[in-house]
């Protein structure tokens, strides 16, 4: 950013000088007629009434013309200043995002490497009481899993950016698909006091890609646990609405807290300043979710839930017997579109 400061200063000086020059020029030209008349009067030359009237008319007309020209130029200049400032603001924001991204990735990769390394070194050097050995191994394993997860997220988002992710929607009963997955998620998050519940009525059959659904639910639930505060409570509500299958993932945390509802789905966007970060992550989870939802012809929204917390709503095409073929076409086109 510093490299931009000097040219910007020069630019502002030029604009100010130019404005001053123009002001002087306009004043000079509009007053010229008046001076001319005064000079002539001083010299004793008398103007006929007709000549005076014509002179006044001409002076007024040129005055108006100069004023219009200078206003136009002035507006043009203000416009250019505004454009430059806007570009600069964008640049600053982008630079901030890039710093945040680098900072987050550095921290997210180095921290688990550091702790896994120390756990293993402690074991190697025989510095661990037997009672703690199992715990050390488990924690080192968790660190490696966290690393694997980040690397996987980075690879998937890279593939999504290059539109190389294959999505094959098929007719799926979502409830029976979700149940075993939620069991795994409970095993993962349960020990830290998180509660994960599925609220589903009748069977909901959608046109979706099983492995994408797996990633979507994993990311949304983990996100809910992460931002759900201590003893997070994450609810999944599955239902059919019109021709869509709707899955809501709701947590009871602080909600979106004014975060931009669209920006949270962008890659590497994380709330706040990274040097005072409060949450793990590199900011890829929701981006991956949005892209996978879109590739299946679905939509995703994020809102503050009534009564606190955030609710993410994914809607996918419902696979009805009579409409299955049509939905399939839709999904295929949408999928292609995303690619």
């Amino acid at each position: 950013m510093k490299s931009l400061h000097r040219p910007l200063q020069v630019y502002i000086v030029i604009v100010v000088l130019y404005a001053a020059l123009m002001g002087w020029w306009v004043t000079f030209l509009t007053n010229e007629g008046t001076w001319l008349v005064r000079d002539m009067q001083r010299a004793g030359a008398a103007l006929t009434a007709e000549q005076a009237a014509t002179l006044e008319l001409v002076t007024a007309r040129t005055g108006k013309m100069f004023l219009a020209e200078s206003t136009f130029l002035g507006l043009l200049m203000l416009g250019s200043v505004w454009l430059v400032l806007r570009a600069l603001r964008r640049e600053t924001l982008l630079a901030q995002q890039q710093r945040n991204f680098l900072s987050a990735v550095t921290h997210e990769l180095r921290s688990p490497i550091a702790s896994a390394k120390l756990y293993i070194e402690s074991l190697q050097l025989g510095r661990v009481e037997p009672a703690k050995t199992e715990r050390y191994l488990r924690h080192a394993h968790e660190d490696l899993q966290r690393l694997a997860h980040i690397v996987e997220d980075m690879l998937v988002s890279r593939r999504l950016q290059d539109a190389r992710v294959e999505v094959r929607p098929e007719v799926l009963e979502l409830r029976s698909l979700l149940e075993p997955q939620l069991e795994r998620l409970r095993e993962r998050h349960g020990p830290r006091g998180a509660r994960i519940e599925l609220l589903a009525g009748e069977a909901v059959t959608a046109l979706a890609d099983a492995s994408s659904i797996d990633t979507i639910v994993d990311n949304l639930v983990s996100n809910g646990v992460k931002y759900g505060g201590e003893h997070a409570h994450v609810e999944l509500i599955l239902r059919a609405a019109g021709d869509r299958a709707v899955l809501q993932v709701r947590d009871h945390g602080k909600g979106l807290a004014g975060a931009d509802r669209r920006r949270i789905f962008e890659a590497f966007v994380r709330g706040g300043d990274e040097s005072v970060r409060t949450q793990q992550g590199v900011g890829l989870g929701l981006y991956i979710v949005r892209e996978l939802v879109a590739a299946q012809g679905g939509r995703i929204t994020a809102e503050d839930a009534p009564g606190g917390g955030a609710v993410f709503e994914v809607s996918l095409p419902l696979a009805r017997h009579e409409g299955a073929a049509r939905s399939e076409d839709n999904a295929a086109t949408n999928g292609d579109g995303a690619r």
Partner: protein
Amino acid sequence: MSHERLLVVEDEAHLSEVISDNLRLEGWRVDVVADGATALEAIRASRPDLVLLDVMLPRMDGFAVCDALRKEGNDVPILFLTARASSDDRVRGLALGGDDYLSKPFELKELILRVRAILRRTEWFRSPSPAGETLTLGKASVDFRTNRAQVGERNYELSPKETMILRCLAERPGEVVSRAEILDRVWGYDAFPTSRTVDNFIVRLRRILEADPREPRYIHTVRGSGYRLTP
């Protein structure tokens, strides 16, 4: 068993667990806090012998904690432990008054050696000097316990590092003390990359203690080797 008390400031639960376990194994007492603001309160309430301070922390980052402490005159030794490893960050950490800087991931042995080195330096500094508690150089007198110098009627506040350099020289009056030795005793083995640093401190000390800093009477430069104090 030593009884030094260390404070680990780290928000990653796994790191703070494995670090504090290993430090306890060395016989130190270890407290752990997980964010910058709590760390600042804890250090103000009861000064530990060393703070192991992460940089990226919730609520208040490690650099800000260090800066706040130094500004209020708290010279608790600080070892930065951080995932940021650019030389800018390292220089920033040390410029803010950090004592040493270790980037993650690091070796367990290195961590323990560095902690020991900092504790050894501060212990040397806190123990009574064999050269006595005060140093008199003509009209100037320096109190090693309070980091104060009195020159005639005027009082000066010395930084702990300045006092430590003077002590290094005063403990061997008339002998040449090399820059490397001063660096080692005052800063630790590789915290500061350059022996120029020592020269800068000497310049300031001369300005305070010497009647004519350009013609030093007490703190002499020995070309090519180091410094000598002649009381």
